[in-house]
């Protein structure tokens, strides 16, 4: 077995794993019927699915061409930014009451998203009625 044969199989396996997880994530996105549970599917695709696809690209570039390190950068930036977008979607869900109201925190007054500033309390009341 030459290096190229091993490389080909490794790339193939990585592509299959990545594609499989991307598909499971998509199925989850379609299947779940609540906006909060639906949020869990993309976080999965963002980690292992993309990770395996980028690993395939990296192995391919090192075996068949001159190596490339860009994939590590993509992975690093993705790992740093993916939780932030998920956090914002969750905050929007809480803010629009699209999900069950979360239980009150033990030590502080309320969750920061549900915390309505003093000046806006009246507006909030009018909206409810």
């Amino acid at each position, binding site marked *: 077995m030459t290096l190229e044969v091993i490389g080909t199989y490794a790339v193939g396996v990585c592509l299959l794993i990545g594609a499989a*997880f991307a598909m*499971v*994530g998509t*199925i*989850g996105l379609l*299947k*779940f*019927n*609540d906006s*909060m*549970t639906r*949020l*869990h*599917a993309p*976080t*999965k695709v*963002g*980690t*292992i699915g993309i990770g395996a696809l980028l690993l395939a690209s990296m192995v391919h570039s090192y075996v068949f061409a*001159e190596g*490339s*390190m*860009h994939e*590590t*950068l993509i992975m690093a930036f993705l*790992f*740093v930014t*993916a*939780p*932030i977008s*998920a*956090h914002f979607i*969750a*905050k929007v*869900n*809480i803010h629009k009451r699209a999900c*069950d109201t*979360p*239980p009150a*925190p*033990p*030590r*502080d*007054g*309320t*969750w*920061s*998203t549900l*915390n309505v500033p003093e000046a806006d309390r009246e507006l909030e009341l009018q909206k409810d009625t």
Partner: protein
Amino acid sequence: MARAFRWLFPHPVLTILLAVVWVLLQNKFTPGMAVFGLILGTIIPLVTAVWWPERPGSIRLGRMFSYAIIVLWDIMVANIEVAWIVLTKPNSKLKPAWIVVPLDLREPEAITILAGTITLTPGTVSADLSDEGHSLLVHALHTEDPDGVRDEIKNRYERRLKEIFV
């Protein structure tokens, strides 16, 4: 001397990080590019230091590295678990739950890393912080035992982060 160093490199870690990212962007290592990366890494923190006056506290890099390995391993294990839930559990049997994690961490950087870790490990998403930052709201996709999940987050991640940010 120390003051001059502090003025020139307000965020030493950021300087090194920017230089490394620059070299990685070039995709091949040449001394010229490394020097240019260091120049960029000096100028950018210097110019943006006005908006970021405080230096983050010191961290233990060795423990940070072992923490990253643990998180990567957990991401893989949890991915397979969640894929199994997605494929086999019908919607009616799914038990999503809110989990409140009381925080012992106080540094904003540490809380950010904890929240990011919770979101990256599939099955849990960090959704909100309480208004004074003493607890973290986590949403779990499927759990029989919300208290167990909370204890795991506290023991597995928060305890280690407390050791990293001394």
